[in-house]
């Protein structure tokens, strides 16, 4: 079956460090991947997405890398700030023709000042 999992449930970093959050997916048919940030008591907030025809995509302070060979996705956050503290989810859509996001359990990012 399909699954999206995360290697590290909690990641603690110092303010100003770069953070890397990893994600493994199992469905090689997935062609769309998204990273969401969820703060306590709020809904998931879209960060960045990537399609399977790309290896890398950059946003403001964030970069997503996709390695289809090993079915691995990562989110890099540059110069991490205390406001980046949240749970981060990767999600995939392995369904062509319709939308059904498959989420992992999330990684908690803790940023110390």
């Amino acid at each position, binding site marked *: 079956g399909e699954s*999206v999992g995360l290697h590290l449930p909690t990641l603690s970093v110092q303010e100003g460090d770069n953070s890397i959050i990893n994600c493994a997916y199992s469905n090689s048919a997935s*062609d*769309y991947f*998204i990273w*969401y940030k969820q703060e306590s*008591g*709020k*809904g*998931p*907030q*879209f960060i960045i*997405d990537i*399609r399977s025809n790309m290896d890398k995509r950059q946003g403001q302070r964030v970069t997503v890398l996709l390695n289809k060979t090993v079915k691995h996705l990562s989110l890099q956050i540059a110069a991490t700030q205390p406001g980046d503290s949240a749970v981060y*989810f990767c*999600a995939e*859509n392995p*369904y*062509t*023709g*319709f*939308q*059904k*996001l*498959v*989420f*992992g*359990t*999330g990684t908690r990012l803790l940023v110390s000042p």
Partner: protein
Amino acid sequence: DAGVTQSPTHLIKTRGQQVTLRCSPKSGHDTVSWYQQALGQGPQFIFQYYEEEERQRGNFPDRFSGHQFPNYSSELNVNALLLGDSALYLCASSPGLVNTDTQYFGPGTRLTVL
């Protein structure tokens, strides 16, 4: 530009009762999906509505039903509530059905079943 809105924010019910949750999509979006998020877990897909019809459904029993109105807003109904239905219910909207259309989430409704 208002994002996805949901109501109510919190709800407490007892076992066996029925509940209705509401969602208004982001402006310009016509597709609404509902997800259930148990504490400490990622969201799980319940179903998706487009053109007032249920288009896709996840692994949830028939106690979970929904509706989409002509203005694209949506309701999620859960009958015969169980303790295990306690969760954060999230609504997400997107501008279409294409699998690469980004889904934007609302703040959620926290349902507690006692």
